[in-house]
C-alpha cells in the first residue's frame, strides 16, 4: 500500500491518494467545517467499452450496447433487499450514473458516513443477477430510453456524434436501444462485472467531514484483494474525417436547437493540457463581449443559451458549440469567419488574460464544494491526471497555445452541424 499527499502549487489545497493493497485507488479529502460526506465508488467502464478481453482470453468479447448502464441498474439489487433500502435506513442519499467512460455509485450524507461507506463498498462488490430481476429491469430502462429519446438536447447531441464518428462507440447511446437491451441476460452481466469491476480498474473518492484513518480502516476490512487480470479494451480505428457535415431532424419542441461540432485529434499523451487549451479556446470564441457574439445576439440569430464545451475521452476529442437558434447555418458561417479572423489576426492578449482569470476564479470556487471535489478527484484519476492539475495547468497556458489550437484543430472540413427544428 502506498500513500501520497497531492497539493496544488497554485492554491495550496491538498488531498491524499492511496494505492490500496487490494488494487483500488483511493482519494481522500478531509474538509473540516463541512457537515456533508460525499463518496463515489467507480469503475472505468462506460458505454464505449463494448469490446474487451482479459490477458488469459484468446479472443475479444463483444457485448450489446447499453450493458454498462444496465449493470449499474442491477447492482442496486442485493440478494436480500434493494440497496436503496439499506441507505434509507441510515438516511443517506444514494445514486449511480453511467457515462461514456465510467460507472459510479455514490452516496451523500451528514451522519453515519462509516456505515454508508460500508454499504457502498459491500454492495458494489456483491452482484446478484437473475433472469427474473433482469427481465423486470427491461421495462424500467425501456422507459428511460423513451424519455431520453424525447429530449431534444440528447438527440441533437447524439445525431452530431453519429455524423462525426464512423466507428468509435462514442456515437452509441449510453442506455443502448430497446433492441440491444433485449439481448442482455444475467450471464452477460456477470461476464462484464467480472471483467470491469476488478478493484485494479476502480477508484474510491471521498470528501467532506471524514477521517482518513477511519476510511482506510473500512477499506482494509471490506476490500477483497483482486488479481490484476490484464484488462484490455479496444476501439475500432477511427478515420480522421467526419461521416456527414449536416444532420437535421424535426421534432415537436418549443425552440429549435443546434450543435456545431469540430472533430479534433485525440491526444492521450497530453490529454489534460489539450483539454484545457481547448476549453480556453471555446471560452474565447463564445465570450459575450466579442463583436461576433453581440452581432449574432442583436440580429436574433443566437440568444444567451449560446455556448461551447470540450467533449473528450479515450480515442475521441471534439469541440461543440451549441444553443437555441432558428438560423443555425448563419451561426456556422459566423463561427467559420471568426475562426479565420482569429487565425489571421491572432489572440487579443488582454482578453485572453481576462478569460484565464475567470477560469481561475471558477476553479478556485469549486474547491469549497464537497460534491465537486469528490467528483473531480475520481474523474481526474480515471482520465489519467491528478486532482489539482487542472488549476495548475490552466495557469501555465499562453495565448499562443490557444491560437495554435484554433488554427490547427477547428477546421471547417471536420465540422458537423446537427439541428433539431421545431415542427
Amino acid at each position: 500500500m502506498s500513500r501520497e499527499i497531492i497539493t496544488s502549487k497554485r492554491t495550496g489545497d491538498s488531498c491524499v491518494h492511496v494505492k490500496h493493497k487490494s488494487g483500488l485507488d483511493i482519494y481522500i479529502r478531509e474538509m473540516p467545517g463541512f457537515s456533508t460526506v460525499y463518496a463515489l465508488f467507480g469503475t472505468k467502464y462506460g458505454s464505449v467499452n463494448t469490446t474487451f478481453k482479459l490477458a488469459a482470453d484468446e479472443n475479444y468479447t463483444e457485448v450489446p450496447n447499453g450493458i454498462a448502464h444496465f449493470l449499474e441498474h442491477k447492482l442496486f439489487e442485493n440478494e436480500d433487499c434493494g440497496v436503496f433500502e439499506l441507505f434509507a435506513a441510515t438516511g443517506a442519499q444514494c445514486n449511480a450514473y453511467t457515462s461514456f467512460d465510467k460507472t459510479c455509485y455514490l452516496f451523500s450524507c451528514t451522519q453515519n458516513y462509516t456505515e454508508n461507506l460500508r454499504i457502498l463498498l459491500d454492495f458494489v462488490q456483491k452482484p446478484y443477477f437473475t433472469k427474473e430481476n433482469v427481465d423486470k429491469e427491461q421495462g424500467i430502462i425501456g422507459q428511460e430510453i423513451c424519455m431520453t429519446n424525447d429530449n431534444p438536447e440528447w438527440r441533437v447531441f447524439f445525431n452530431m456524434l453519429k455524423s462525426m464518428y464512423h466507428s468509435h462507440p462514442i456515437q452509441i447511446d449510453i442506455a443502448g436501444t430497446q433492441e440491444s437491451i433485449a439481448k442482455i441476460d444475467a450471464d452477460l452481466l456477470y461476464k462484464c462485472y467480472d471483467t470491469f469491476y476488478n478493484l485494479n480498474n476502480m477508484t474510491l473518492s471521498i470528501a467532506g467531514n471524514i477521517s482518513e484513518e477511519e476510511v482506510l480502516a473500512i477499506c482494509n476490512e471490506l476490500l477483497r484483494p483482486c488479481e490484476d487480470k490484464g484488462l484490455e479494451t479496444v476501439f475500432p480505428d477511427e478515420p480522421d474525417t467526419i461521416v456527414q457535415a449536416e444532420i437535421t431532424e424535426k421534432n415537436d419542441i418549443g425552440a429549435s436547437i443546434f450543435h456545431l461540432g469540430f472533430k479534433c485529434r485525440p491526444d492521450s499523451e497530453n490529454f489534460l493540457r489539450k483539454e484545457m487549451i481547448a476549453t480556453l479556446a471555446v471560452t474565447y470564441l463564445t465570450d459575450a463581449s466579442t463583436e461576433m457574439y453581440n452581432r449574432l445576439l442583436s440580429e436574433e440569430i443566437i440568444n444567451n443559451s449560446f455556448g461551447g464545451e470540450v467533449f473528450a475521452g479515450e480515442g475521441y476529442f471534439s469541440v461543440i458549440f451549441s444553443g437555441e437558434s432558428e438560423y443555425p447555418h448563419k451561426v456556422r458561417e459566423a463561427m467559420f469567419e471568426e475562426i479565420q479572423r482569429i487565425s489571421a489576426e491572432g489572440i487579443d492578449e488582454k482578453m485572453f488574460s481576462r478569460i484565464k482569470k475567470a477560469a481561475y476564479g471558477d476553479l478556485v470556487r469549486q474547491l469549497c464544494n464537497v460534491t465537486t471535489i469528490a467528483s473531480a478527484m475520481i474523474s481526474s484519476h480515471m482520465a489519467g491526471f491528478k486532482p489539482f492539475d487542472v488549476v495548475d495547468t490552466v495557469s501555465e497556458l499562453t495565448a499562443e497555445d490557444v491560437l495554435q489550437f484554433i488554427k490547427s484543430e477547428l477546421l471547417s472540413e471536420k465540422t458537423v452541424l446537427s439541428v433539431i427544428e421545431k415542427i
Partner: protein
Amino acid sequence: MNYTRTEIGSNIGFTSVVDKKFNSCSLQLLMIVPMGENASDNSVAVNCISDANSKLNSIAAMNERLSELYGAGFSSSSTIRGDMQVLSLSASWLCSRFAIDGEDITAEMTELITDSLFSPFADENGFDESVFRLSKKEILDIIDSRFNNKREYTIVKAREIAFEGEPIRYGGYGPREQVEAVTPKSAYEAYKKLLSTAQIEICFVSPDADNRVQEVFREKFGAIERNSASHTFYSPSPIKPEPVLVQEEFDVRQAKMAMTFKFDTDDIDAVHLMCIIFGGSPVSKLFVNVREKLSLCYYCACSMSEYKKTITADCGVERENIEKATAEIHNQLDEIRKGNITDEELQSAFLALENAYTSFGDTHSSYISWYTDCFFRNEYTTPNEYLERLFAVTKERIAAAAVNVRLDSTYHMLNKEAE
C-alpha cells in the same frame, strides 16, 4: 457561522451569514409584489437590470466586467411563492483574498449590483431600446423553450389547469402574450414602482465579516421614498368541485402525466412527511410500487407547494399504461390514508429529512434557501428546531392529513402514434 438579520429600511430585510470556510461570496436580493397585471413588466425590468446599467451600457460590457472580476456571476429570475411574484437578483464572486492582482472584488461587485439596481441603463423614455429588446427576448425564449423539456412542460401545464383563474397560473413571468406587450417605458415604470413598493429581502453570505455591503444598500435605499406593504405567502388554491382531466397529443415517444392534489389541512408538517413517504425518495410508495414492482415508469415522484397547499405527482409512462399508473398512484395514496405506513417508511423519512437539514451550511445556496424560507414562512427557527417539529409527526397525523388530500386535476401529454 455568524447569522444576523437587520431591517435596513422600510420593509427591507438584510440577512448576513459569515462562514469562514468559504472562499467566495453570494448575494440574493428579492423584490416581492402581489402577482398581477404588471407581472411581465416586472420580469422584463429585472432582466434589464441584470443585463446592463448606466456604466456598463450593454450585455457585452456587463459580461466583460464580470469576467474581469474572476468569473463573477450576476443574473435575475422571476418565480412565484403563494400568490406573490418573487423577482430575484443573484450574484456570486470569488473572495477578494484570492484575487491574483489584489482587487477588492467584493467592493467592485457591490458597486456593480447597486449600479444596476439604482442606476439602470434608461432615460425618461424607459430602458435602453437595444438592451430592452434582448432582455425581453430572453424571457420569451425561456417560455418557448419549456416545451423542449417534456417533463417540465407537463408540470407547467398541470399548474395552469390546477390554478385556473388564479393570478399565478402562468408562473413567474406571466403569460407569453403579456410579455410580448411589454415596452421599454412600461418595464421602466414597473422598475420604479418595484423600488418604492416591493417588499425587499436581501441575503448575503461571505467568509469575512464585512458590513460595507449592508451599509451601501442601506444608504442607497435610504434615498428612495418607500411605500411598501408586507405580504403573506400562504394562499391555498381552491379545489375544483370535480376533478378535471386535460389531454393533449404531440409527436412524442413517451406519454407523461401530472396529477395535482390539493389539501385542506393546516398540518403542513404531516403533509411534508406524507409527501416523502408517498413519492419523495427511492424507497417511497410510488417508486417502490409504480416503478420497481410494476415496471411502469423510470420516474414517478411527487412534490409539495406548502404555500398553495398542493401536491403534484408526475411520471413518464407508456400511453397504454396511463390508467394502470393512475390507479396505482391512487391506491398508494389510499394506503397512506388507511394508515398503512410501516415503521421503516416513517423512520427513513425522518432520516432523509435529518440528512437534508443537517447539510445546512455546506453551500451558500443552503444558507440562502433556508433563510429565504424562514422569511416566507415568517418563522425564524434553526434547521434543528424545525427538524424537532417534523420528528414529532406520527403515522396517525400523516394518515389524517392524507384523508384531506384530494385530486384536483390531471394533465396527460399523449404520444400520437400509440393511437
